[in-house]
């Protein structure tokens, strides 16, 4: 392949890798928003917690990497359920302004909690994969990147199937569309809320645990993750799953290609520029709420 094609392929591959991660994180955010009507500014903190818990399970307890990842998700989900039960259940009828402020407070709390507990040191999760890069016609990747991409794609599919094909998913979508009507036909809204919050946190934690292998995690990581997730959700349409998946990939590719072919200092501006365009010309997002 000619060098410019190789470079393009490398940018595309980078974009898809990061885009899948964005999609996974944004799916959780959009789920919580859609079902619970909460703009969860603490979403990135679940990503950070997933990364840290996985790191401690692998490097301190010496747990097998492949066992540690799901276990880390379980731990974060347990915490999310406690938070949902203690805080958000009580705020079910509260206006969005209130819940938003609560999530901002929660995000500050969780970040500083992590700082206190684990210190400011960034950590990389040790993985069993060889660090030697794999080359395919001059396009480079590593076994870890391939694993990450595989896991994120698999989780996106699992999430999608869960929402589209299962009874629980149906109940969630019903709650999405009309909470009161859903309650009337016998859906237990409380339980749906808990599932949605746990599911959203699980996706973020899974992303944190998987990506923690090559993106060091530190207490302050959550902020930027939340920001990216919001960009994706606004791009894709608040509360739309397909929108989160497509939005994630679009943002990942736009950043990779934008930074690749324009001055790279503009990389973050690309996402915001896309958001401004979407808000101006298609304020409901690329996809309507599911």
């Amino acid at each position, binding site marked *: 392949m000619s060098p410019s094609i190789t*470079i393009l392929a490398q940018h595309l591959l980078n*974009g898809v890798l990061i885009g899948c991660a964005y999609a996974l994180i944004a799916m959780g955010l959009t789920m919580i928003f859609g079902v619970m009507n909460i703009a969860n500014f603490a979403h990135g903190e679940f990503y950070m917690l997933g990364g840290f818990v996985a790191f401690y399970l692998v490097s301190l307890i010496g747990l097998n990497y492949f066992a540690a990842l799901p276990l880390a998700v379980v731990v974060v989900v347990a915490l999310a359920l406690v938070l949902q039960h203690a805080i958000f259940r009580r705020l079910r009828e509260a206006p969005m302004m209130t819940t938003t402020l609560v999530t901002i407070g929660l995000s500050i709390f969780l970040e*500083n909690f992590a*700082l206190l507990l684990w210190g400011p040191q*960034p950590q990389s999760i040790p993985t069993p994969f060889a*660090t030697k890069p794999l080359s395919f016609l001059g396009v480079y990747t590593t076994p870890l990147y391939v694993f990450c991409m595989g896991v994120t794609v698999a989780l996106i599919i699992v999430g999608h199937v869960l929402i589209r094909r299962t009874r629980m998913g149906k109940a969630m979508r019903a709650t999405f569309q009309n909470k009161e009507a859903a309650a009337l036909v016998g859906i237990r809204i409380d339980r749906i809320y808990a599932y949605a919050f746990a599911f959203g946190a699980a996706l973020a934690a899974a992303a944190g645990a998987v990506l923690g292998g090559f*993106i060091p995690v530190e207490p*302050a990581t959550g902020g930027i993750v939340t920001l990216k997730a919001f960009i994706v959700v606004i791009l894709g349409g608040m509360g739309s799953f397909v929108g989160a998946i497509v939005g994630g990939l679009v943002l990942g590719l736009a950043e990779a*290609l934008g930074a690749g072919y324009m001055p790279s200092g503009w*990389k973050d501006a690309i996402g915001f520029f896309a958001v401004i365009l979407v808000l101006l010309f298609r304020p409901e997002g690329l996809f309507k709420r599911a």
Partner: protein
Amino acid sequence: MQTLRLVLAVAVSLALAPYAAAQESVRIGVVQPTTGPVAYDGNIYVNTVKMLVDDMNAKGGVLGRKIELVVEDGACNPAQSVNAAEKLVVRDKVVALLGAFCSTSTAAVMEVAKKHKVPLITGISTAAQLTEQGNPYFFRAVATTPMLGNAFGGVLPKAVKAKRFAFLVLNDDWGRSMAASYPKTIENAGGQVVATEFFQQSDLQFLSQITKVKAANPDAIVLAANTQQAVALSKQIRELGISVPLIGEGAWTSDSYIKLAGPASEDVYGLVEYVYTIKSPINEAFVKAFQAKLKENPSKFAGAAHNAISIMVDAIRRAGAADPEKIRDALEKTDYNGIVGNIRFDAKHQAYGQTVYLAHVKNGVPEVVETAQIAKP
């Protein structure tokens, strides 16, 4: 009534506490990021200063009085750093300030120092324009990026055996001034710059930038990043199949970097103001104390902290009084011999005379391969 009286008594004594203590101890304020994006390095700075001050106090303090540190978090955020400095000067009545890590925050804190006429030393902020403002209360005990570039740019092509250099640096004053100052000296020494790319403070992955740099086919990559990003950068550069030497300004030879980056830290060069393998009695003593107390080898931020607090306390001693104005005058006459050699300040309060180091990481240990002296600007 009883409780009310007690509460009042406690409140009054708390309110008066700073004044009572001010008479007994010499208060030095520290504004460093102990949270936020560079919290890790900021904490090293704070812990080092604390350790050294404990040691100085054990040896009798300064002017026959104890030194008391008051630490505030500036979070590498100009607004928060200003608030921290204001609080330290107005409420805690510190006579001198150390801070504030990130150049943008230091620029903001400088104004506070000037307003309240309190001397301020930075050991870390390298943006060149800080000392160009003629702020009489601001001193910089570290070489600026252009000064490092002048000292080392000409040495790089030979030292790392490379001709084609690519720059991949942080998109702020520091990275920008690096990308502006090094190329000239590198080109004078027969090298060339084939690519210049930037990344943001908040970036966690750099795959696009690395791919672009790779397309330019460099023999060496020059980087500017603090620990967090340095780790991710060096891993991701190797993961995309680039094996050329990396030359980093920032935390590139610190223990924590080497430990976190693992094999990706091999064959990395650090362009640093301090490295723990410097062979001199004063440094060896510092490293020993640091290892005993903090269980790792001091990084360049520990070195910066050592310089800043030592120079400040030295000035207080020579001033003969815990008076900000006298300390400022004494700082101008600084002639300090420390862990990186002799440091003096020029008319703009920029440090010169100190040694800077090019260290090469081999089997996890940074070895000094080249040194240079910062010339009087």
